[in-house]
């Protein structure tokens, strides 16, 4: 009977103050969506970092007037290097094919250059891609090498962009969480005020503190959980319309967001939503009811 009493009090409480309840749920939902999105970005960035750095390729470009002896020496050194898994030699013709492919929309540019101006290069696959910097230091100073290039600086820029996005989402999540928190506190105060007579009698006859507080705290928790469900819906919408829709063209660049990952964000959102609501309600009651 006590459980039934508590649950019916929760529903009555949420309904009595329905506009406030809705405001509380919406704020909570937006905050949790931001939180979920920032969590997703975090996971994605980690995943992509792994993906990109696994496949990082180091290119050693040779000077245009490199001698055959220098080339043999470099080739020998590369073949003997334990850090390197495989080496592909790219001669001037092959380099030109690559340039042709990249600039096929700008024939003017292509006609201005010929294979002879392009440098020869070695494309290296590393045993451990994280060690690309060591390779750069080792080979940059060798006779006949023009420069050692890896894609890490470009990747770093992309990842910085993602981190910035994640930070913006986190800041928005925190700002909305503060608003949600204040709304929860306010809603709980109104609820406690509307039940002040019952609460006074309960305190007088010695009802336990948890019994007095439970309906109010649960009211907030239910609102928090509904908010996190809405947040899950919003994330699903983001996936369908943004990642699978508008940003579809970029899917080669981004690791796609799977449904599993969206669903995995839910426990995080639900836990944070419920916990924030419960603690806020409980603290509010401690001040307001002095139980």
């Amino acid at each position: 009977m006590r459980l039934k009493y508590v649950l019916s009090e929760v529903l009555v409480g949420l309904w009595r103050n329905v506009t406030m309840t809705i405001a509380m749920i919406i704020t909570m939902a937006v905050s949790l969506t931001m939180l979920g999105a920032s969590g997703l970005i975090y996971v994605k960035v980690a995943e992509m970092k792994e993906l990109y750095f696994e496949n990082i390729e180091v290119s050693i470009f040779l000077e245009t007037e490199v001698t055959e002896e220098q080339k043999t020496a470099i080739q020998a050194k590369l073949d003997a290097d334990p850090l390197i898994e495989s080496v592909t030699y790219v001669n001037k013709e092959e380099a030109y094919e690559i340039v042709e492919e990249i600039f096929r929309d700008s024939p003017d540019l292509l006609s201005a250059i010929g294979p002879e101006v392009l440098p020869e290069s070695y494309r290296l696959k590393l045993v451990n891609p994280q060690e690309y910097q060591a390779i750069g230091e080792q080979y940059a100073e060798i006779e006949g090498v023009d420069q050692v290039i890896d894609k890490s600086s470009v990747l770093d820029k992309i990842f910085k962009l993602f981190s910035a996005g994640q930070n913006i989402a986190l800041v928005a999540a925190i700002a909305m969480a503060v608003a949600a928190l204040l709304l929860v506190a306010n809603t709980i105060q109104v609820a406690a005020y509307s039940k002040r007579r019952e609460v006074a009698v309960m305190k007088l006859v010695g009802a336990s503190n948890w019994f007095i507080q439970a309906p109010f705290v649960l009211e907030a928790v239910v609102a928090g959980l509904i908010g996190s469900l809405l947040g899950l819906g919003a994330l699903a919408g983001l996936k369908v319309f943004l990642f699978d829709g508008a940003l579809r063209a970029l899917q080669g660049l981004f690791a796609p967001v799977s449904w599993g990952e969206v669903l995995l964000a839910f426990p995080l959102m639900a836990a944070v939503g419920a916990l924030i609501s419960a603690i806020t309600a409980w603290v509010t009651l401690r001040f307001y009811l002095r139980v």
Partner: protein
Amino acid sequence: MIQLEQVTKTYPKASRPSLDNVSVAIEKGEFVFFIGPSGSGKSTIIKMLLHEVAPNKGRIVVNGKDVTSMRSWKRPAFRRSIGCVFQDFRLLPNRTAYENVAFALEVIGKTKAVARRVVPEVLELVGLGGKEHRYPQELSGGEQQRVAVARAFVNRPLILLADEPTGNLDPDTSIEIMRLLDRINRTGTTVVMVTHDSNIVNQMRRRVIEIESGRIVRDQARGVYG
């Protein structure tokens, strides 16, 4: 049953203490009146016995438990051994007489079945048989106070505290309520009543403790108002 040992209470911003070095002992089964002018500190005693207000100095022991050092989380269990009645009845307006009394049982974990057995019994005892399903606004002041007494007594507390229970009632109704409290006292319940009502004090001829400016000025068995 109740001991106050050199209890002093000064409210913040008050110029003089509400209670000044007050010591009283009340035995089990006694019926005690606290009398005195408004602001003399009578109600402070009730609040202290309920663990609502803590004294600045001194010790309060109720039913063998030191209330002064009691942690607040123990307060609910402590309150279950004390019944309380007030001048303003403090009934829930949207519940019937039966529901008001049953509410007090249910919120401390008693089942509906227990309430169905005990509540009609106690309503009969306070003389409200047949009026169980009336709402407070459908009852007279005296009847409302009877509901409050029923609610205070339904758990069979060891102590019944009454803070001016007849303050809102006419003389005849007041005497009926006093008869009821007297009957409850005869079951062995200790009754502590704060009042201004000289008529009642003179009729009952019980122990009278008079307080003035926070000090006990008279403590008299079978006393009168003064």
